């Protein structure tokens, strides 16, 4: 059957339901949110239609700048940590036996789908005084007394790396599976050690993939909202936490919406950049 352009109205039939649903329940809510970001906030959690930039003006405060700066810093740190571990790991995984790959993929998918609430709970247990890892250190004689490791920046960072790592591997996996094995074989034949072949052949060949993955993981990490709350102190709150806090607990929808619009713009710019990096790869 050749693909042909739709001619009669009936040919468009299959499109009606999906298009309708996506427009009504995604495009319209999105537009509503943008509209609300310009609304005027009233006392008591209500807001009235208006067209003011007050909500955006609040971005200029030092507090907001601090939160934004910390969010970006945290997401970059998580992205770098994940990609740094993820590339050698995924490379070795893609060279493993098929059955080994499947076991790892199922495990990674299971961890990836685990609710952020549960990841937060699991790590706060591991970092707690009574059930935590420090008990193991005491038992091994490395520490004299068990202690709690949360709330701290290290705890937030570790848990977010944990959350984003399976995602990183799954983003890298297709590119590494398709990587031509003769590339490394040639390097090995010419006398390079496996580690040297990895750094001088595999990594440069994947430069654009690595950049695109860094950006994808960065956006993924920007979306983390529970781990900073559960494992960090208030100064470790990210933009996502602040948006939720303003929307639900401070009942300041217009300000929350303005921050969300800002977050969309940042994300879209980065998605565009990663698509551009991906295109460069194809062009080569």
């Amino acid at each position: 059957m050749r693909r042909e352009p739709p001619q009669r109205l009936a040919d468009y039939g299959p499109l009606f339901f999906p298009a309708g649903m996506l427009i009504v329940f995604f495009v319209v809510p999105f537009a509503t949110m943008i509209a609300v970001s310009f609304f005027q906030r009233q006392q008591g959690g209500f807001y009235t239609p208006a067209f003011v930039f007050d909500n955006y003006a609040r971005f200029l405060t030092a507090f907001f700048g601090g939160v934004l700066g910390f969010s970006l810093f945290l997401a970059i740190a998580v992205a770098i940590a994940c990609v740094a571990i993820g590339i050698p790991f995924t490379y070795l995984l893609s060279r493993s036996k098929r059955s080994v790959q499947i076991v790892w993929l199922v495990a990674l998918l299971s961890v990836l789908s685990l609710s952020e609430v549960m990841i937060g709970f699991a790590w706060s247990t591991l970092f707690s005084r009574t059930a935590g890892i420090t008990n193991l250190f005491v038992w091994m004689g490395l520490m004299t007394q068990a202690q709690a490791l949360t709330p701290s920046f290290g705890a937030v960072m570790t848990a977010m790396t944990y959350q984003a790592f399976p995602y990183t591997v799954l983003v890298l996996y297709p590119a590494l599976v398709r990587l031509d094995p003769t590339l490394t074989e040639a390097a090995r034949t010419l006398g390079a050690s496996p580690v040297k072949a990895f750094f001088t052949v595999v990594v440069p060949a994947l430069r654009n993939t690595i950049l695109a993955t860094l950006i994808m993981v960065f956006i993924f990490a920007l979306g983390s909202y529970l781990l900073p709350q559960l494992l960090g102190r208030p100064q470790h709150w990210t933009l996502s936490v602040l948006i939720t806090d303003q929307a639900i607990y401070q009942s300041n929808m217009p300000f929350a919406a303005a921050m969300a619009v800002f977050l969309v713009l940042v994300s879209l710019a980065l998605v565009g950049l990663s698509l551009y990096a991906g295109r460069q790869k194809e062009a080569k």
Partner: protein
Amino acid sequence: MIALRRIFFFAVGLFLALPLIVVAGVSVNQRQTLTFPPQGFSLSWYGQIFTDPEWRNALLASLTLAATSALLALLIALPLAWFLWRRVAPWANIFQLLGVAPFTLPPVITALGLLTFWATTGFYGQAWTAVISHGIFFVTLPLVTLSLGFSAIDRSLVEAAATMGADDRTIFRTVVLPLILPYLVSGYAFAFVLSLNEYIVAYMTVGFTMETLPIKIFNALRYGYTPTMAAVTVLFLLVAAVIFGLVARFGDLPKLLGAMAEDK
């Protein structure tokens, strides 16, 4: 080199498993304390998920939400993927983009958009709004698996059916549907598992009227930790592992994931 690889795999595996091992240990504590290694052995905390009305209701709410919203996601994705495969209509790709967008952007954005929408339309807090919200949020997953499924169909098969006089409807039912069934099932499975675990969209749409299990755990965390939360975590992990294991058993998981991220 092989030894080095083993050590590296082991280290990554340990990092991924460690919090889960501790949670699994905590979940079998005899008394209501979080200690590791566990004191005594008891499966009563697992039992509590099913016997305690609050936990049971949360479990049922989560399962119902996941089952129905994954179905909705599938119902949106299937005709769209079919249309994009069957027709030449480049402008319709905008809907593909719309289907992938909620999953690519930070989830808090979709959640807030839906919150303002349901609040504006006056349906805020109704249970069915969560079904639609999750259905839209997770439409990406069946959309991606189905696009992959359609692209794998040999068009000459469909052409043969058309030559013999089958109309679109018959072709879809007798040729296309059997071929894409594995992709249909895996798309549903992905959406189901992720909906089961999703927190922020559910919380922002129905958080004050309905408790799914992730919401219930988060609310309970404020009053202290109980082994029941650990039991739920282990249970959910097992459910996900079994479902993804089945997808791998009956489908081609490396291929599915190999092409999935490529479409992003």
